[in-house]
C-alpha cells in the first residue's frame, strides 16, 4: 500500500506549524520555567508551543487522508505571486524612502508600484491619485492632525 498525499497545502502548512512550535519550545526552554505555583517566563509559552506543535502535527497527518470532494475550491487555485509581491514591494518602497527622501516622493513611489499591480490603470489616473494623496497628506496629516513627517529630500 502506498502512501498518497491528498492535500499538499495541509501537508506544508502542518509542517510549518510544527517547525514554529518546535522552535518555540526550544526558545521557551531557554527562559526560566519556574513551578506551577510560581511560573517563570518560560512556562506559559512552552504550553502554547506544545499546543501549536500538536495541532500542526495533526494537520500534517490529515493531509494523507482520502481527499473529500468539497475540498476542491481554494486548493485548485494557483498561488498568485505577482500581486502580493507588488503590494509588499510598494509598501517597502514607501518605508525605505520615507525617512531619506520625504513623504512626497514616498507617496509617489507607492502609487507607481501599486499602479503596476492594478491592471488597466492609466498613467493619467495614477498621476491624479499621487497628486490627491499628497494633497491629503499635507492638508489632513500635516495641517489638521499636526504630524511631523520628513516632507522633502534632505
Amino acid at each position, binding site marked *: 500500500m502506498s502512501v498518497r498525499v491528498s492535500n499538499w497545502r495541509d501537508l506544508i*502548512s502542518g509542517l510549518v506549524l510544527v517547525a514554529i512550535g518546535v522552535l518555540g519550545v526550544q526558545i521557551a526552554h531557554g527562559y526560566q520555567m519556574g513551578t506551577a505555583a510560581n511560573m517563570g*517566563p518560560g512556562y506559559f509559552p512552552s504550553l*502554547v508551543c506544545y499546543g*501549536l506543535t500538536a495541532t500542526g502535527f495533526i494537520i500534517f497527518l490529515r493531509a494523507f487522508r482520502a481527499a473529500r470532494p468539497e475540498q476542491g475550491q481554494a486548493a485548485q487555485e494557483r*498561488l498568485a505571486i505577482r500581486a502580493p509581491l507588488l503590494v509588499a514591494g510598494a509598501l517597502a518602497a514607501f*518605508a525605505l524612502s520615507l525617512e531619506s527622501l520625504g513623504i512626497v516622493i514616498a507617496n509617489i513611489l507607492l502609487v507607481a508600484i*501599486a499602479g503596476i499591480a492594478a491592471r488597466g490603470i492609466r498613467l493619467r489616473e495614477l498621476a491624479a491619485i499621487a497628486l490627491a494623496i499628497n494633497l491629503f497628506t499635507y492638508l489632513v496629516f500635516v495641517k489638521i492632525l499636526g*504630524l511631523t513627517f520628513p516632507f522633502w529630500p534632505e
Partner: protein
Amino acid sequence: MSFFDNIALGFEVALTLNNLGFALLGCLVGTLIGVLPGLGPLATIAILMPITFYLTPEAAIIMLAGIYYGSQYGGSTTAILMNMPGESSAVVTCLDGYQMAKKGRGGAALTVAALGSFFAGCVATIFIALAAPPLARLGILFGPADYFALMVFGLTAAVVLAQGSLLKAIAMVFAGLLLGLVGTDVNSGAMRFTFGAPQLFDGLNFVALAMGLFGVSEIIDSLIKGNRNPPTTATIDSLYPTREEFRAAAPASVRGTVLGSVLGVLPGGGALLSSFASYALEKRLARNPAEFGRGAIQGVAGPESANNAGAQTTFIPMLTLGIPPNAILALLMGALMIHGIQPGPGVVTQHPQLFWGLVASMWVANAMLVIINLPLVGIWVQLLRVPYRLLFPVMLFFCAVGAFIESGNVLNVYLMAAFGVLGYVMKQMEFEPAPLILAFILGPMMEEYFRRAMLLSRGDPTTFVSNPISLVLLLMTVGLAVLIVLPNFRKVREEAFQE
C-alpha cells in the same frame, strides 16, 4: 447614578459638535464601504484605526463603531438593488431583497431594511444600557481562575464559529497566543521571542499586525480576484411599503431584533450569525415558506434587524468583560487599549463618559444612518461605478501612512507588509485570521490570569473546577467542544456556511 442620569451623561458626550462630527464621518465611511464590494468593515477599521489615535478616546470609538454599523446599512443597499452583498452579513438579504427589487418592490425592501435596522438599533441601545452595568458588576466578582476560564470559553466559541477547518482554527489560536507573548514579560522583565530586536521589546505592534492581516491581505485578495463590473441596478419606484408588506415585516423585525440582541452577546456571535439565524427562524415561522427566496419581505426585515442588533450588542462582552466576541470587536478593543483604556468590568465606572457616550452615540448614529441611506440611496449606488483600480492605491496609502504614524517607526510598515503577505498565504492555505487576532489580544491577559490563579491555588490545577464560576464556564466550553465532535452538528455547521 440612576439610569436616566447615565443616559443624560451619554447624550451630553455624544451630542458635542466634535463627537457628532466623527459619528457622522464614521457613518458615511461605513455606508460607503458597505456599498462597495471587496472592502468590508474589518479591513476599513484596521486601516483607519491609527488615524483615530489622534482623537479623544470617545471620538475614536464613536467613529470606529459608526463604521461598523454604517457598513450594516450600506451592505443591505447593494444586496437589495443588485444582488451583491457589499458586506458579509448582507448575504442573506440578497436572497429575498433582490427578488423584491426584480418585482419592482426594491424601494419597499430598502425602507423595510433601514427602518428595521433603526428599530433594532434603538432596542439594542436600550438593551446595552440596561444589561451592561449589571454584567460589569458580575465581572468584578470574577477571580483569576474565572477569567481564565472565560477566555478559554471565548476562544473556543471563536473556533466553533470560524469558517473552514476547526483544526486550523485551533492552530490559529495557538499561533495568536504565541505572537501575543512576544516582548517583555511583565512579571519577570524577561525578553521573550524578541530575537534581540529592541523594537519588539514592547511586543509585536498590534496595529501593524491587524492592518497586515485584515487590510493589506484583503487588498491583495481583491487585486487577484479582479474587479467585476457592477451589474445593472434594479430601479426604485417608491420607497413606501404597502400596508400588507408593513404588516408582514413589523413582527419579523421585532423577532429579528430580539434574536440579534441575544446572539450578539454570545462569544463568537455578532452581525453575521444573527442574520443567518433570523432568516432560518423566519422561514420556519412563515405560513408559506415557499415564498422565501422569491421575495418574502420577512426575509429582508428579520435578518436586517437582527444583524444591526447583533452588531451593537457585541459591544457588551467587550466593554464589560474584556472579551471581544469577534475580530471587529478585537480591533476596537485593541484601539481602546492603545488609548490607555483597558476594556473590562472597570470601564462602566471608571470611564462613564466613554461608556455612556458610546451607548448614546449608537442611537445617534442609527438616526443618522436612516437619513444617510434612505433619501440618498441614489448617490450611494452611483459610487459603485468607481473602479477598484482607482481605489486600491489610495487604500494602500492609508495602510502605509497608518502603520507609520501610530509609532513613528518605519519598521512597522515592513512588519505590516510581511503580515499582509502572510495573511494572503494563510487564506490560500485555508486558515482564517480571525481566531489569531482574538488570541493575540487575549494572550497576555490569559497568561496573567493563569499565573495568578495557579499562584493562589499553590500550583493546584483543580482550582479551575473547584471555583463555581470557572467550573460553569469550563463545562460550557466542554459542551461546545462536544458539539463540534458530534457529526450532526458538523453537518449543520457546514451547511450554514455554504448557504
